């Protein structure tokens, strides 16, 4: 099911489907590794939230969170 990060709970694991945001913000996220197929885990839900992506821990504010569409198994 396709969701964005704000609807995930702490501990949820999801696969990135696509990044849709104002272009340069989206490019920045994609450059950091938020690309189709990347696995992420929500370490702390909320605003901002903390996600783990390929071993890196990243803090994400509201706009960035809702611009990452993920697929939850």
């Amino acid at each position, binding site marked *: 099911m396709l969701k964005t990060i704000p609807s995930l709970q702490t501990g949820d694991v999801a696969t990135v489907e*696509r*990044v849709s*945001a104002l*272009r*340069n*913000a*989206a*490019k*920045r*996220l*994609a*450059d*950091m*590794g*938020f*690309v*189709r197929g*990347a696995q992420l885990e929500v*370490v*702390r839900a*909320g*605003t*901002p939230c*903390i996600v*783990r*992506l*390929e*071993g*890196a*821990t*990243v*803090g*994400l*504010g*509201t*706009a*960035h*969170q809702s611009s990452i569409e993920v697929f939850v198994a």
Partner: protein
Amino acid sequence: MPRRVFSGRPVLLGDPLVHPVRFSVLPVNILPMSKPATSLRDPDIQVHAVAILGNPNTGKSTLFNAITGFRQHVGNYPGVTVERRIGRWRLEDDELEIDLVDLPGTYSLAASSRDEAIVSEVLLGRAANVPSPDVIVVVVDAANLARNLFLTTQLLELGMPVVVALNMVDLAESSGLHVDVEALGSALGVTVVPIVATKREGIDDLKHAILAAPNQSRTAALPEFPTCVREERDGLATTLVGVRSGCTRQIAHVEALQLLLDPGGYYEQRLVEQCGPSIADELTERRARMTAAGASLAEVEGESRYAWIEGVMTRVVTRTGENDTDLSDRVDRVLTHPVAGLVVLLAIMATCFQAVYTWAAPLMNAIDSLFIAVSGWVTHTMPPGPLESLIANGVVAGVGGVLVFLPQILVLFFFIAVLEDCGYMARAAFLLDRWMGMLGLTGKSFIPLLSSFACAVPGIMATRTIDNRRDRLVTMLIAPLMSCSARLPVYVLLIGAFIPATPVLGGFISLQAITLLCLYFVGVGVAIPVAVVLKKTVLKGETQSFLMELPTYKRPSPGTVFFRVYEQGREFCVSAGTIIFAVAIVIWALGYYPHSASVAQQHEAMRAAAQVDYDHAVAVAAATFDDSVSADQIELHPSIASALTAIESIEQSFRDQVADRNLEEDSPERVALRREADGREASMRSSGGPKVVAAFVVYDARRLLETRLADADRSESGTYLRESFLGRMGRFIEPAVRPLGWDWRIGTAVIASFPAREVVIATMGTIYNLGADQDETSTGLREKLRSARHADGRPVFNVAVALSVMVFFALCCQCAATLAAMHRETRSWRWPLLTFTYMTLLAYVAALITYNVASRFI
């Protein structure tokens, strides 16, 4: 940009799969003439400049310090304001010196902040005064390889020699990740050197690899982009090579890709500045074709590169154990908790401020006494005159008044460096993002604002990490509202003089401490609406979303902390030595000239009159003697001299007791002591003969002479100041400051404190006829402020006036260094002028309100 060498190897233009050694693409005629001829002949290519770069938190600076040690210097990139660190590195057995350029951390060549833009500038060879690198060292975090390889692949495409420094291999191993160095090297086609920068492991291997890098040919398959992207990129690259002289095909490729994928971004702005808006049309067309072919501009680069990286990762990384991010996670469960985390943050901040004020105090006193001593020495050794006054009151007092704050800045930066290096600062920014969001800012503004409590200058410099221009400006504009350490002396002086030390809250805290605390809150309280207003008016824009990596916690490296503190200290001293120095001289000149001779004559007359009166009194005393003593010999007469000694010893013991017990002017103990001394003198007078009486006459006449001479000196310096340009300005603005409860002297002091707030104390000292050697604990100045009177006899100062002055200083922007830093950072006078204007207006209005409210209720 052309570099040094031709390998003669054929180049496969435009083929993204094969990565040829560069250098051979340049036509000979565009080689710059200044390059040493040897590098053209010599098959062993010499390395002159090396750039170190990598993702944030990969230990670049630690590596930089490990290689260069003290042989480094920090400056700003001209015009741009990103910190520039260049170090030199001499090889053991070689005369060759190599410049090492430490570049800011970045995730991608796509530049979204000032820091990142400078990386591209240097790599593309466009930064003035920075040597174009011959070799790029990319520092890669072994535990976070995939993300780090993204930037690495971008750099490989530049076609310059690259060495990969695989850092923190020890941490990766302990968290169960094994990286096959050989396999990684062959996948990337470059030398990979495993290092542990904090333990200086692998540094020598890295140095050798750097030297060997330009001579290594490499062919490696690099990430492949979809056909539509490739076509447009190659087409645009052809245009770029045409418009830019000396641009290699490979650099053009790299630039073209970023140009296409980042509409309106840094590269596009640069290009349009250079080639005019027509080029933007070409970009738009090409982007439209790419989008039509199904490529997502934002995602295509990430997808292509990460797909390639995925393939490399499976060959290179083996998981030997469980992922051990547990400890960092457990710590974060507390430190990033919305409630517990904030409590810890407040505790850390409280400790930090406590340390800033307590650890620094002894050093500050030492510096202060040193400058007072130097100033005194100058006054005593140099003949009086403009030069002596310029050095003692202008230069030494001005620069010294600022350097006093160096210890506080060092302590604060020690804390900031430790917190940053261990990874905590990112968590603090994360925690406060929600709160900063209310001001329309992100958590990234927190660190600059925190620094501003010590000094707004480093705070303003720290805004460089904020990638959004508007957020950066708002942060910069409100940073000077945080109560910096330079305001403290003003607070200490006026609170000590006018606020009673009454205990409140059941004796837990004194009224003085509460006043001090309130003054700190005034700044913060005003900064909040100011930020909101700025975000809604001049710097309108959406609230940016937070995006920040939270690095794994680690032990801070002493070297990195040391260099950070050292650099800040150095930068502060340089600014004190230049701007503040210059402004101090200007203010001194305004306060010294015109220095008319008639003032001197008038006071010379006063001194002469005092001398005449003394001579007369002594002559009268001498006349009472039967053994005729001449007036000028009377003090040497044996019985007079012994009586004088006795009187002097009574006075001396009174002074000693007052000093020992630190008694205030009107304290009952002091009055009692005075009465006792008077009693002893009276009994001496009544029991002694006429000689003793004569001795008292001489003694009193001498005391009177001393007092009158000192009065003449004070009145002279006071008159000079009142008649000086500065004094005239003060009297001119008096009507404006009278509603605040101030007289012209306070107004003058405020004008004089434009270069730096703390100057106000020295100026008040001069203005209240005390000479300039006053500091905030000087009881003399405190007393003098209390006893200062208006012409009609009312006291100048009362609680309301003191509060009004303090509130003014809490909010005003009387700090040349802050304004200069702002100018440096924004490359315009617009923002410093706006800041000065809005803060002065705010300060005025707030002081007006404070004075009127306080005089009604207190």
